[in-house]
């Protein structure tokens, strides 16, 4: 008899914690979003009015757009650069471990500390970024204080005016993008390197006999065979980029999310609605659930795509 129930005793401690602190909160978040709810407690049932309010909330759409900019810029750059790093590392033997360690350092350091450091790097007067730009003969930039879009700034150099929908993410948001890519590289490089080392050498040997060039080998063998890893990196980076918070919280402002709300991302908006001035936990919970649905659908689409492109 005891043998029958004892397995549950082993699972129980973990199960209790996970049910109370993961499962119940997730169920609770639906309930909270349908009631009036603030820091002091529960109020009336308000149905889906939080969700209808979301549709006409310009701040929500702005923060969603900023988050999409973040994902669209961070994910492909992270994939291309980390694959590039991994291919380089895969082509050397000496010091491979050393470089791997160096590249991984940003990934273990706290986002709070690195955000503080990057904020000072992007400081217009005493920052390293403008110092280097000037050293190489470029004009200093406004970085985190610049609300104009990067396309607007870039094409403006050639006297071209761009319509506002083409202006792109603000330079301030672009600075956040740079930091986010920088921090993601170590992790993704390690994953890619492992994937590359998993490709059987015979493929390369065979293609060499057929006289394939290195470029041809990369596009004909490496890229297709590494695609499961690419999907993994794609998925992980997308999920984490949707959740960017610390960089925005520490690097921008005051007010946080500035200039002109161009760096306000969705998770900061959730935080601000729930714990800022309005303390509207109910509305914040509704936004969080919308974010969850978005992340979930991206994950499912990527999974679908992965099945289609399988080697």
């Amino acid at each position, binding site marked *: 008899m005891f043998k029958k129930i004892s397995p549950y005793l082993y699972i129980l401690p973990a*199960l209790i914690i996970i049910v109370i602190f993961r499962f119940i909160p997730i169920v609770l978040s639906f309930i909270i979003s349908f009631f009036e709810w603030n820091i002091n407690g529960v109020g009336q049932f308000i149905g889906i009015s939080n969700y209808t309010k979301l549709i006409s909330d310009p701040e929500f759409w702005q923060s969603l757009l900023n988050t999409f900019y973040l994902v669209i810029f961070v994910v492909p750059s992270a994939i291309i650069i980390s694959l590039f790093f991994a291919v380089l590392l895969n082509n050397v033997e000496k010091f491979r471990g050393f470089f791997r360690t160096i590249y991984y350092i940003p990934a273990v350091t706290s986002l709070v500390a690195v955000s503080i450091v990057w904020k000072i790097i992007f400081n217009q007067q005493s920052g390293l970024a403008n110092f280097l730009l000037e050293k190489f003969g470029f004009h200093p930039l406004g970085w985190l204080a610049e609300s104009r879009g990067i396309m607007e700034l870039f094409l403006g150099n050639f006297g071209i005016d761009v319509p506002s929908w083409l202006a792109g993410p603000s330079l301030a948001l672009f600075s956040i993008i740079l930091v986010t890519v920088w921090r993601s590289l170590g*992790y993704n490089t390690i994953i890619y390197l492992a994937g590359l080392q998993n490709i059987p050498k015979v493929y390369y040997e065979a293609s060499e006999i057929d006289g394939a060039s290195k470029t041809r080998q990369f596009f004909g063998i490496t890229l297709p065979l590494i695609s499961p890893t690419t999907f993994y990196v794609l998925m992980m980076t997308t999920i984490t980029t949707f959740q960017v918070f610390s960089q925005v919280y*520490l690097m921008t402002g005051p007010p946080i999310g500035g200039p002109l709300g161009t760096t306000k991302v969705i998770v900061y908006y959730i935080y601000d609605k729930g714990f800022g001035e309005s303390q509207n936990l109910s509305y914040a919970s509704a936004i969080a659930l919308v974010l969850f649905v978005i992340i979930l659908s991206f994950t499912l689409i990527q999974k679908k795509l992965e099945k289609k492109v399988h080697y």
Partner: protein
Amino acid sequence: MKSLSQIFIYTILILCGISMVIPFLWMATTAFKTQTEVNRGNVGFIPMDQYSEYNYKGELHHVKLIKVIGDSCFIHVFNEKNQIIREYAKVPTNEVKQIKKIAFHWENFKKAFQKVPFAKYFFNTIFVSISVLIGVLITSSLAAYAFARMEFFGKNTIFYLFISMMMVPQPIYLIPSYVLLNNLGWIDTYQALIVPWIANIFTIFLLRQHFKTIPQELFDAAAIDGCSRFRMLWQIVIPLSKPVISTAAVFSVIGSWNSFMWPLVMTNSESLRVLQVGLSYFSQESSSQTTLLMAASTFSILPLIILFLFAQKKIIASVASSGLKG
């Protein structure tokens, strides 16, 4: 030909490596500068002191050059405490010496550490990290043992519940967790920082994978000798799994140490601030003190960088295997 391309690859690797660590180098070197230097525009990587010196009444003093008129000039003379002791002194220009020397201002670290109670923040972070670690190791080895070596009704259901919970990102359950902890009366307590984190699904999986690889014969032999199931965990499984347990431990500590959003939301009082939250408030309150901010950033990431350098082989091997499916 081969060696030429190798040199090329190494050059690129070095350049990329520099760009990955340059923020840290700049952080560390800026932490040693004086704020005056930084405000003056010394942005480079070498902490330097630049000032003018003048022998005023038989003693060398720092002075500030105001205006040069022909061979003579007007200066302000400062004492050691950087207070002006004489304004607009007219002196010969060639007796005012321009000093430029490399100087490391270690006192920035001390100043930053004392400006806000960083000692308390460190204590809180270490206390929370260790408590979470102990909890995680206990709950995870028990659960992983059951998942790996026992058959019971509902095993798969519970397993999938765990997997699906792992997929939910933290910002999603932040608000309801706050509501829950608030109802428990746990807001602004250590429990709020520790208890919800003492079960770690990732660790359960990591340990389960390893526990599965232990040969069944060992368990059979132990059973014949009358060894209980719990003793097998304690005397066979855990001793054989030391490497994977230490990997899990390192990941747990890194996670607790760097956790920010959760403690930011769940605590209010200064005495409960963990390092990341304290650092964040410090950066908002002293945003103009860049040298102190750099010093504080340096000492708050140093422990983790040291831990990483010691455990880097384990960490990298574990990350590498997480991407390889199947």
